[in-house]
């Protein structure tokens, strides 16, 4: 098996659209959650959301943007930032050994727009050329492939809120198995109300409207639901030996990827599913649970989901576990992007020597097994990190990454 290095990262999130801004926000425990007035007008139960406000998309032409929804454009920004950090030129990735895998499970707004146009005009003629490419679930990778001109793997992976985690895991597997040298991977998520209305209908979003920054409270006793969010995360994974030979900056190494499914319920996670993914990732990494010094948790701030993750974490780590924080108290739930964003966030923590806090964790939930939750930032970077993500239907991804600190 080949070793897999992380040589570049990029992020567009509600905390910022460049790495240094996001890194500072993570360290300070800042929130990117706001109230969206349009959601109030539309009759949402909860108008709380993350928002992207400062992403410069001018590097794409109007023609290029025509086939790209906003989240694919954010993915391009994140991917190009990651490639720049990795020091890979356009020429170096234009070959069959370089590929793309992104997590994405919908492109809702474009699908709505095309049907709106059809119903309004009662003919397809005026729909134009862009919407077909914007509305497909594979829109990120199909567009990035034409822009970056990689010639290897090119597909998007759909597994609800673990899409980004599985995308990074599968990218690592392709490199570990010797089938690709470089895979630009990640996840992206749209934020518009159209894509969130049916989720809002489940009553799964926090109703703590008067205090948006305190709304998302992973693992806290007073948690009352998640806050939807989005953006894009891009990661360059690369054959370790190749990266070392060319003198690339090696941020860390993907040691293990575990996957599992619950085989139980649509929306209630099981007590064992995620722990099986974690154990698989640890086994592939060749390490035992006590060697993990930080868990970047999935916990979204829902009563059932956070409880299930705590039970699963306790199955793996018992009472003496590592530091745990869910970053969703700051960034909200980035859905399809979440599992990939965690790798970027953890890389930033390792680079700057801190563990980001689990914002809004005020009071332990007496029903939960005990966890060592970082209430404030820890002044020591994580070395061996486990990142969890879990999605509707009970699909779980776990990644073990070792950073160079």
């Amino acid at each position, binding site marked *: 098996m080949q070793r897999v290095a992380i040589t570049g990262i990029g992020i567009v999130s509600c905390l910022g659209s460049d790495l240094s801004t996001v890194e500072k926000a993570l360290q300070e425990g800042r929130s990117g959650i706001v109230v969206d007035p349009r959601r109030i007008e539309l009759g949402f139960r909860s108008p709380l959301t993350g928002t992207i406000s400062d992403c410069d998309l001018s590097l794409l*032409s*109007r*023609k290029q943007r*025509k086939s790209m929804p906003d989240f694919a454009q954010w993915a391009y920004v994140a991917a190009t930032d990651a490639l720049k950090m990795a020091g890979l030129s356009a020429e170096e990735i234009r070959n069959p050994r370089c590929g793309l895998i992104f997590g994405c499970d919908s492109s809702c707004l474009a699908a709505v727009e095309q049907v709106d146009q059809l119903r309004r005009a009662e003919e397809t*003629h*005026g729909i*134009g*050329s*862009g919407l077909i490419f914007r509305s497909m679930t594979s829109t990120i990778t199909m567009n990035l492939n034409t822009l970056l001109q990689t010639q290897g793997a090119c597909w998007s992976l759909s597994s609800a809120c673990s899409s980004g985690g599985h995308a990074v895991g599968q990218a690592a597997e392709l490199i570990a198995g010797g089938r690709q040298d470089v895979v630009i991977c990640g996840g992206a998520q749209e934020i518009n109300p159209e894509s969130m209305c049916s989720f809002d209908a489940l009553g799964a979003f926090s109703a703590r409207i008067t205090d948006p920054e305190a709304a998302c409270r992973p693992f806290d006793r007073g948690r009352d639901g998640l806050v939807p969010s989005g953006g894009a995360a891009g990661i360059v994974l690369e054959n370790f030996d190749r990266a070392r030979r060319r003198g690339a900056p090696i941020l860390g190494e993907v040691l293990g990827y575990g996957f599992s499914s619950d085989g139980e319920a649509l929306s209630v996670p099981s007590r064992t599913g995620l722990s099986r993914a974690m154990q698989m990732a640890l086994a592939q990494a060749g390490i035992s649970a006590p060697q993990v010094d930080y868990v970047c948790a999935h916990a979204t701030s829902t009563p059932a989901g956070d409880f299930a993750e705590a039970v699963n974490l306790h199955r793996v780590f018992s009472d003496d576990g590592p530091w745990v924080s869910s970053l969703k108290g700051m960034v909200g739930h980035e859905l399809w992007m979440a599992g990939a964003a965690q790798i970027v966030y953890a890389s930033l923590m390792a680079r700057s020597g801190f563990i980001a806090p689990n914002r809004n964790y005020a009071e332990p939930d007496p029903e939960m097994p005990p966890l060592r939750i970082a209430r404030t930032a820890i002044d020591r970077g994580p070395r061996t990190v486990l990142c969890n993500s879990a999605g509707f239907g009970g699909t779980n991804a776990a990644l073990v990454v070792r950073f160079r600190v």
Partner: protein
Amino acid sequence: MTDQEVIALINRTLCEEFELDPETMHPGVTLYDELELDSLDAVDMVVALEQAFQIRIREEERMRQIRTLGEIHAYVLEKYHALAS
């Protein structure tokens, strides 16, 4: 609109839709070779011209045969005058 105004609006519409340099918009310029438009752009060109002039362009075979900007000018002028009369 005079013919010159129609031509100016066609050029402006296409420049905006496809981010073209107005300096290149002379009648002899070829759409697909020199302006580097493709078959997807042709779909959007029809939609943009229909919206700009409130006309309907449904002769797809004729559109497919058009190669130069001057031919677009002539075709839209023909449609525009037919609508005006």
